[in-house]
């Protein structure tokens, strides 16, 4: 490395630390991620408007028909890779990205496919997580029961709502997801307390082996009532928008119920195993399940997730997570502007 580059590096880092000091004075540290998201969102919105003003058009249905399932497969494979590397469920991005980038496929069909993508992702991941004891069915199934009942209501309301209102709400929800991903940090595991109420009745407790620390971690949830109440909201959103609910399940398990993060992430799959198919059945019975869309999407996401898992050791998770957040913000804003008819 030359003296020049060293000096440039030193100057750059000095400038950066000076800017950081100024930023810390202007804004408290905990608000900075939110401000960054706001700034990013504004930039994306301006760029999006500029593209449209310059004559940019959404993709249309011209071209050979087989191109569409192939495109869906490839997009889903890419989303699957990103989802694993970014540490989120691929289905979270499926509906927002496909509605954001193309207006060819109606959101009714995309939501049905999104639920199947969420479900198949959970089917692929859950067996080994359940067998290892990381995903706990005693914790997941009662929550899934509540969420699946409300998911039916969500799906029925979603299908009855006008498309622009669905787009608008989806945009707001996706932006909320992005905020969640920026702001929420895992909580420490709650100290074990005596089992009460539902926890005692259903014997919800467990342990897992923390391989990194070579420890047996035992846990028992708290505030089961509050957690279950929140899962009813999660179910409504999952059914209404066809998005996987991992982004909401994990904070409820971890932040509200004090379940260890690893168990929360894994048990979120158990929830998806019941909630997604229940809502998907509503879409199926209304005739919204299109195999030409659903099967390539499911296949793409499954293969992408496997590729992502192999690339995991090469990737920089923090960077990928930022990329995922940027994609969500972009997709959320597109849905919002479409919903508003802009």
């Amino acid at each position, binding site marked *: 490395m030359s003296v020049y580059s060293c000096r440039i590096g030193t100057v750059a880092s000095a400038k950066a630390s000076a800017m950081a000091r100024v930023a810390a004075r202007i804004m408290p540290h905990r608000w900075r991620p939110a401000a960054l998201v706001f700034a990013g969102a504004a930039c994306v919105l301006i760029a999006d408007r500029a593209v449209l003003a310059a004559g940019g058009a959404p993709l249309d249905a011209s071209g050979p028909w087989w191109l569409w399932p192939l495109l869906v497969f490839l997009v889903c494979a890419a989303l699957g890779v990103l989802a694993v590397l970014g540490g989120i469920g691929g289905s979270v991005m499926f509906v927002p990205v496909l509605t954001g980038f193309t207006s060819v496929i109606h959101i009714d069909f995309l939501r049905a496919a999104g639920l199947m993508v969420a479900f198949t992702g959970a089917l692929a991941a*859950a067996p080994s997580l*359940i067998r290892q004891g990381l995903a706990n069915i*005693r914790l997941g199934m009662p929550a899934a029961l509540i969420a699946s009942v409300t998911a039916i209501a969500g799906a029925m309301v979603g299908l009855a709502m006008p498309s622009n209102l669905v787009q608008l709400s989806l945009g707001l929800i996706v932006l909320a997801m992005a905020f969640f991903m920026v702001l929420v940090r895992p909580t420490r595991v709650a100290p074990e307390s005596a089992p009460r109420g539902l926890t005692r009745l259903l*014997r919800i407790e467990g342990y897992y082996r923390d391989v990194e620390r070579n420890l047996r971690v035992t846990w028992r949830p708290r505030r089961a009532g509050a957690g279950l109440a929140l899962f009813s909201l999660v179910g409504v959103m999952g059914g209404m928008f066809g998005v996987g609910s991992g982004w909401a399940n994990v904070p409820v398990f971890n932040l509200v119920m004090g379940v260890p993060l690893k168990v929360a992430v894994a048990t979120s799959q158990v929830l998806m195993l019941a909630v997604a198919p229940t809502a998907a059945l509503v879409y199926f019975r209304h*005739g919204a399940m299109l195999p030409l869309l659903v*099967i390539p999407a499911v296949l793409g996401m499954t293969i992408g997730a496997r590729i992502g898992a192999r690339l995991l050791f090469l990737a920089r998770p923090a960077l990928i997570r930022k990329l995922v957040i940027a994609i969500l913000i972009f997709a959320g804003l597109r849905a919002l502007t479409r919903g508003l008819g802009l």
Partner: protein
Amino acid sequence: MKAPAAARDNRAQQRAALQRRVAQVERWGTRVALTFAIGALALYMTGALAPYVPAARLVTLWGEDLSTFRAQTGLPAGWDSFRHLRHSDMIAIAGIVSLILVTILAYVALLPQLVRQRDWAFLVVVLLQLAVFLAVALLPLG
């Protein structure tokens, strides 16, 4: 002190047995259902079996909302699709439904073990979930 420890070990073993049962049903069920769905899609896309709605027509109409789409294609909804299983796209829909069945089977597989373990509270949770699946699958949805 020995009695509570033995009871705890017994509970842990029962929990592990339940977890193993669910995992086993899901692993095998997914393999079978996914293979079926992919095979059916291959039939549809290659045209080896006549579809109800040709793929070339479907992609020109899937931008319409659900009611317009169904009016224009005449595509049967829900369980009515199973009356047309001579068409490749309807077989593919059955493939999708078979994936959903995997989770229902996993819940059903838990029932005998829960009865054997006399875990009545959790048995009620599982039965209620099965009732929800049944209701959404069979009751009129409006």
